[in-house]
């Protein structure tokens, strides 16, 4: 098995419903299990019948990995485990495990209680599902079974977001989930070792964007908010309860304090205190600055930001409200939006990406006459888009590729057209193949893996010593030729010394054959010039020139002999096993001498 197969059930040339099936080294892994915010029908969940027509998925999956708590990455989890059926392990970080059930419950309430849908997962199912989740710590290597190992890395995107390194025997891949390569107000930047995976599956939400500096964006944002409240307007900022909301709060809080503003800021999130509590408890997952100052002052205790009440919607005067959900598709943020939209002095700031089909998406694409649940609505308020969403931009994605040096790249979680652009860029700049399968399409990635074997230590040491004269520094990057016998031991290849093994096994001695070829060389040639020639041509082989005049090309030796004034000879010697290199060196020197003689004659 020298290939990795990947099929996106969601997030293939699309944003939302992240769910990628992987077959690596005979193991089947599901990366994320998200839902799509843009749909209300069957399409909102991944099509699990792809794995099995019906019935329990447990025998078909070795594990499920959840990268972070956003619903487009974990929203279908209870549906999959409890309604489709899966009892195997599910891995996620501690903060994800803590926050995930709350967002799932929110989502469930919205769907069942507000929209009155039947046949949806229940609270009980969420609980059961979460009990199957195993919480993991950053950088901890988890041995899923004897062959499959996973290791999470910091991804930045939201509290507890992780990238996962998956390794089966000699094959490996990295799945980024969503990540952010620039540290923000409350989270650090994603980082990973140079782990050289066979495949990097990266999100590509901002595949074509190169964002200006974060500071500028923040200043813009604050300026716009400030201007709006100055002219007595109301500012609505739709957010998700956890993540961006906390960053914006820190931003507004510090600005309000600095500018000594009195305009009220409200945080209309059902879970305000709870949400902020999570940040307090998982402070080790935030950035360095917050970690260092938490003893004196917890950044998540806000002075200027107060809880919102529905009745405040009609309040006169300016205010700033952060309300959920972030894409204006339902709930309080939509309700406030409907009230405030008809007035020019008001403003809505969309701080993140909006999925197609949501009100957020419509107003961002310039639509000003909306139809919401059958009621027409004309949007007169100013609509602003501020990319605060913590995804890596094109530069960040390229940076991550440089960081982990994958052999292949696969793009998910982005729009097809933009992916195309990034794919070309990656292939051009890194020379790695890049895949971008659509949903349901399989990408087959060929991997070359080395086979593991044992090698006898004396043999290894002897081989490595070739070309290391007494006091010089070994040349580790050069190759040495190794000829050896191979025996099978407990199903593992063992490389051993040929002489010894032939002796032991066959009770016979090896018959050594040495070839020596004597070549006449032009008088002006010297050991030095031949050495230069050989080092130049054979750049990857150890070529040494020892004090007694012998040149060694790996195991091939060359002596220069001066017979008389006009005649010099090169004696080239090698063993039977080194025939290839020996005859090559011979030919090379012959050709070289010939060309020199020809030059002289001309």
């Amino acid at each position: 098995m020298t290939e990795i197969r990947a099929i996106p059930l969601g997030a293939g040339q699309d944003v939302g419903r992240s769910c990628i099936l992987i077959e690596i080294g005979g193991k089947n892994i599901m990366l994320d299990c998200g839902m799509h915010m843009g749909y209300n029908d069957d399409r909102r969940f991944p099509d699990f019948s792809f794995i099995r027509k019906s019935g329990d998925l447990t025998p078909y999956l070795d594990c499920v990995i959840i990268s972070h708590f956003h619903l487009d990455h974990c929203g279908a989890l209870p549906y999959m485990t409890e309604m489709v059926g899966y009892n195997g392990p599910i891995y996620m970080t501690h903060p994800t495990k803590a926050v995930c059930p709350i967002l799932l419950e929110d989502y469930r309430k919205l769907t069942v209680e507000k929209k009155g849908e039947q046949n949806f997962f229940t609270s009980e199912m969420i609980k059961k599902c979460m009990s199957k989740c195993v919480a993991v710590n950053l950088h901890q290597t988890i041995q899923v079974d004897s062959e499959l190992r996973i290791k999470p890395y910091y991804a930045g995107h939201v509290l507890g977001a992780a990238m996962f390194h998956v390794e089966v025997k000699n094959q490996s891949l990295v799945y980024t989930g969503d990540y952010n390569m620039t540290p923000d107000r409350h989270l650090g930047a994603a980082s990973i070792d140079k782990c050289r995976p066979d495949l990097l599956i990266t999100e590509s939400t901002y595949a074509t964007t190169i964002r200006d500096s974060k500071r500028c964006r923040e200043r813009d944002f604050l300026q716009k908010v400030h201007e709006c409240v100055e002219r007595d307007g109301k500012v609505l900022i739709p957010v998700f309860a956890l993540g961006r909301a906390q960053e914006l709060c820190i931003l507004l809080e510090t600005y309000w304090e600095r500018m000594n503003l009195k305009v009220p800021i409200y945080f209309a999130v059902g879970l305000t205190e709870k949400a902020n509590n999570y940040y307090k408890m998982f402070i080790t997952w935030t950035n360095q600055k917050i970690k260092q100052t938490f003893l004196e002052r917890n950044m998540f205790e806000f002075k200027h930001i107060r809880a919102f009440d529905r009745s405040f919607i009609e309040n006169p005067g300016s205010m700033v409200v952060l309300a959920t959900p972030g894409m204006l598709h339902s709930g309080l943020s939509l309700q406030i939006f409907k009230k405030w939209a008809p007035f020019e002095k008001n403003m809505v700031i969309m701080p993140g990406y909006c999925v197609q089909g949501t009100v957020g998406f419509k107003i961002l694409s310039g639509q000003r006459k909306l139809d919401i649940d059958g009621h027409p609505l004309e949007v007169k308020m100013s609509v602003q888009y501020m990319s605060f969403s913590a995804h890596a931009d094109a530069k960040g994605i390229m940076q991550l590729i440089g960081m982990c040096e994958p052999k292949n790249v696969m793009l998910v979680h982005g729009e097809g057209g933009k992916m195309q652009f990034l794919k070309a860029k990656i292939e051009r700049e890194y020379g790695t193949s890049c895949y971008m399968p659509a949903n349901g399409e399989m990408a087959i990635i060929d991997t070359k893996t080395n086979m593991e074997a044992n090698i006898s230590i004396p043999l290894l040491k002897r081989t490595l010593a070739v070309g290391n004269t007494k006091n010089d520094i070994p040349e580790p990057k050069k190759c040495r030729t190794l000829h050896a016998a191979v025996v099978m031991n407990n199903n593992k290849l063992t490389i051993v010394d040929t002489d010894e093994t032939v002796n032991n096994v066959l009770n016979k001695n090896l018959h050594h054959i040495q070839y020596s070829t004597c070549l006449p060389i032009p008088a002006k040639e010297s050991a030095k010039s031949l050495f230069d020639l050989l080092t130049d041509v054979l750049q990857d082989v150890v070529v040494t020139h020892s004090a007694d005049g012998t040149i060694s090309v790996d195991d091939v030796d060359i002596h220069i002999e001066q017979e008389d004034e006009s005649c010099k000879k090169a004696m080239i010697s090698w063993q039977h096993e080194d025939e290839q290199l020996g005859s090559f060196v011979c030919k090379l020197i012959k050709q070289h001498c010939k060309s020199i003689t020809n030059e002289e004659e001309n």
Partner: protein
Amino acid sequence: MKLYCLSGEPNKPCFILRFKGTSVMLDCTLDMCSTLNFLPLPVVPSPTNIETKPWIPTFTAARLEDEIKEVQDKLYVNSEPEFYLPELAMIDLSEIDVILISNLHNMLALPYITEYTSFTGKILATEPTVQMASMYMYEMIEYLRRMPKLNNATRWKQTKVQCNLPPPLRDAIEPLKWRKLYNRHDVQSCLSKVSNVSYNESQNIFGTLKVTAASSGFRIGSCNWLIETHQEKISYISGSSTLITHPKSLDSESIKRSDVLILSTLSHAPNESHPDTMMGEFCVIAAQTIKSGGNVLVPCYPSGVTYDLIECLSNHFDNIGQSTIPFYFISPVAHNSLSYSNIFAEWLSGKKQNRVYMPEAPFPHAKLTKTGRLKTFKSIEDGFQLEMKNPCVVFTGHPSLRFGDVVHFIEMWGQSQINTMLITVPDFPYLDAIAPFQPLAMKVAHRPIDTGVTLEQADKMIIESQAANVITTESCLSPENPLHSDVPITKYKRGDVISVPIKRQFELIGVDSEIANNIHLREILPGTVMGFVSGHLVTQDNKHILRRFPSQKATIKKRKLEMTNKESVCPIGQLNVPDFTHELKKLGITDIKVEHKGDSETVLVHLNEDDAIIRVEPNSTFVICQGSERVRSKIREALLYCLETVGCNR
């Protein structure tokens, strides 16, 4: 494999492991028992209850009256307390590649190494270990900083003086090597050099060793270290606990299948004092004292078991309706310690971890602080005097009773028998610790709580680990308390160098898939499968890879990449010369002269016309020719035809 034992104290481990050309230091613990030889340092320079007399020696003229004081017939050094370091001179510390730290206690000598020696390697520890250790360090520094400056006692240390002193000073070990505590700057600089690891996060040391921290259940973030090559495994067991308290529980799976087990720390406590029993008695005694209107003094470290003490005691007080009794935690790092404990959820027991998902703070002391039942103070001068209500429970340091606010409390409460001092820290012989304060009217109860593994549990660990070799400290074992397993046990003491026979025969190598596919294995003899391999050996970061012969630069026209059949066979046995000449003739070489060299087995074959000579010996053949490839390849063909070969026949 060699193990240098820099410390002999069972619970103050410090080793250097030399293995595979790599030097690894395992822990570096500070021995604080030396401080017991010093006079307790008063918190405020006020008249104290400790009656000291200058001590005039009879055997020497050396002036010791400033240095040595007599208290209750016992001698104490009148100087800033000093500490006994591991034997750092045993090895050139610049040779150490990495230091592995198992828990916060075993890190306390680290600043001496990073700041005052030539060590430049890497240091690995878990994040909580680093945070907690830094608190222990800062606490001690702060305690000592507050003290009035004392003169520096050195004369008593001279060997000829010391050997004439009465015990215990006479028996103090190597006082000349004792050192003053490091300072704040040392600690800062030292901690900045430590890299954090998670449990089960494998770290590669120069590609030769893989080191992994495995949860040890002893303190928040404490670990045992696994040091592995692809074949061998050494498990280093430091402070470990099989009990379920607040830290994440012991990962006993990880030490299985070890070749060598280094067992450095065992519980101090005698068998009959199970920690649960001790904890129970601790609560009862504290409650009795409070009930009778007395105060309870608990000398303690700023973290670790202290969290359990607070938790258990507050629960006990709730149960007996004493929930209004205030707890005071007095330490320069008390607030920090409590705050940090509540953000390390990942490192806590499952039960504590689950509370975070609510989200609630994992430790009840968060709630106790919020409700004001538990108050923290940096020192007694930090507004404590105003807040204090009797009766109360005070947790404070340092448990050696030689410095810190505890000295003040012993002086303040020591003269009243309604008060109780509850000693739970097992690290110091308690009678020696309280000796300079005698006579004390307050009750002193010794209820040592040591959650570490006992001998019995150690036996179980040894069996589970299936280790072929066990190394443990001499003083852990006594004839009455032997280890029962059959495994050979090597005992160590300070200064020992132990050689452990680990025979390493093989190293791991990656074989390029193309080469691997081209290895043709044949069963040469029944049960023996053999083949041959050729390739280029490349070594990078101590990882070996066998690659196929490299493709050439465009400038070189042809260098055959694939090996020919002939090369991949191995000639064996002897060459039959008549057969060989016959074969040569068949290939068109006619001018052949065979010359026998005297009575030796050497035969020379001259091919005069073709300018070549072949020297045949029993196990080797030398072919010398004058540059003609045509001739040489014919000779080669004939040789391989005549010799018996092993290898593939494709």
